[in-house]
């Protein structure tokens, strides 16, 4: 029975990793940009929620609602004023810029908030659980997985049923031709990064409620997100969810065997899947 419980906890943890990864996948899918600062931007969003909570006396969920448009603006500005200037045929410049950005965000947060661990306190909901047959499921982990599914459903709806989504996909296919059809690729990229930051804010909310965070934890979140995206197959959001869940289950099983093996087990699962499916589980047909 303990194994069923462990796997279930892994699936729920996977929801959080899928949330980390969805923003990364969105940006990569549209502009082939690997944002190495994605993890740090999630941590930044967590601190923004924290500031709003303490200054306005709000709970984390309300604070995240206010933080989301702020982070959208951060993403939009970041893309418009920094990343659009380095996007091109060469993938190295944007990679270097986002790497630099990661260092700047980490050290900026360290300067302002110190290295102390923080947490977003959500009150009694954190300790609540539901009994599903033989196993108990925490409400917050369940909510995290549900939110991951909701975010992916919403992004899929946006991608396949709206004019903006068609512009995203057209720009992803061929930005130059999209420009000749009246789409403004720079603007599309800025909106995409803004949306990715809204998803980052949602993941920051659940990260901050579930666990402690401090300015240094961004790169590890990026790594989990990156692994989830690669396992799922680049460009597939549902694949990203599956990738997140696989890493979550591997970590939970590793931790059940020996707590020191949690992180290692996740990385091993990633390597194993890459060995057998180098293009991930659900690759796009012609990428």
């Amino acid at each position, binding site marked *: 029975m303990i194994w069923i419980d462990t796997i279930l906890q892994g699936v729920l943890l996977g929801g959080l990793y899928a949330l980390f990864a969805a923003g990364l996948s969105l940006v990569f899918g549209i502009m082939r940009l690997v944002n190495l600062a994605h993890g740090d931007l999630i941590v930044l969003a967590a601190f923004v929620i924290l500031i709003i909570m303490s200054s306005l006396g709000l709970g984390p969920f309300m604070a995240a609602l206010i933080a989301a448009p702020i982070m959208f603006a951060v993403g939009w500005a970041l893309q418009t004023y920094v990343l659009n200037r380095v996007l091109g045929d060469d993938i190295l410049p944007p990679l270097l810029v986002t790497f630099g950005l990661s260092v700047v965000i980490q050290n900026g947060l360290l300067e302002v908030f110190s290295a102390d661990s923080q947490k977003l306190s959500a009150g009694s909901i954190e300790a609540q659980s539901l009994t599903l047959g033989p196993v108990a499921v925490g409400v917050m982990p369940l909510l995290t997985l549900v939110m991951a599914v909701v975010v992916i459903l919403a992004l899929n709806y946006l991608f396949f049923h709206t004019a903006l989504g068609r512009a995203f996909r*057209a720009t992803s*296919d*061929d930005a130059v*031709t*999209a420009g000749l*059809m009246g*789409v403004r690729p720079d603007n599309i990229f800025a909106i995409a990064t803004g949306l990715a930051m809204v998803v980052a804010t949602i993941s920051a909310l659940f990260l901050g409620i579930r666990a402690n965070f401090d300015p240094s934890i961004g790169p590890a979140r990026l790594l989990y997100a990156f692994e989830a995206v690669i396992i799922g197959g680049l460009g597939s959001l549902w694949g990203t969810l599956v990738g997140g869940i696989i890493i979550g289950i591997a970590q939970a099983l590793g931790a059940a065997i020996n707590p020191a093996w949690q992180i290692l087990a996740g990385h091993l699962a990633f390597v194993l899947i890459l060995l057998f499916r180098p293009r991930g589980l659900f690759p796009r047909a012609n990428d």
Partner: protein
Amino acid sequence: MTILALKSVSKSFGALKVTNDVTLEVERGEALGIIGPNGAGKSTLFNLITGNLKPDAGTVEFDGRDVTRVTAMDRVRAGIGRSFQIPQPFTHLSVYENLLVAAQFGGNLHRSEAAHFCVDIIERTGLLQVIEEPAGGLPLLQRKRLELARAMATSPRLILLDEIAGGLTDAECGDLVRTIKGIHRHGTTIIWIEHVLHALTSVVDRLAVLNFGKMLMVGGVNAVMNSPEVKEIYLGIEV
């Protein structure tokens, strides 16, 4: 009334003058063909008209307005549509979605208007059978039709067709010519670069001949085709 005027337009790539002091006027509702040997600068001329390239000298006027420094995107919105020599559909989008993008962003249409408009174009261009198919999987003729359809979806007043009949069978070519004639009848001005001369001359009113970046002559179809200069330079026939 003139819809497009190129005035002494020049463009060089390094030492090579690809467009050399070209002056050309196109009347509203006209169908103009552009011919010339490979490397004559025909596609470059299109790129100068659409704004993909900026001229080194000279001006481009569209509808009485100087658009020389206007971006390609804004020229699409102003009413210059274009199909590519090598079809460049959005491969992951369906045929219908390809047109919707062009109609909503290039043609500034709302969703409901755009839907009717695009289905109408899809019917007129014979793509109804493949309306939901991903564009990446279409055969050449369908891709060429999609190029034409997508350019039309931007609601152009001037449409530039770049070797759209190349690589097609005679029957396919005949179908395409009928479609293009239909577009012309609707009042859209057409400039068409084409090597398939029988297709071209069955549609256009005038021909312009480019050679080594220079505008050799512009005139009626018969006058140009019978000109000894054109026969020698373009068709390679000693007269």
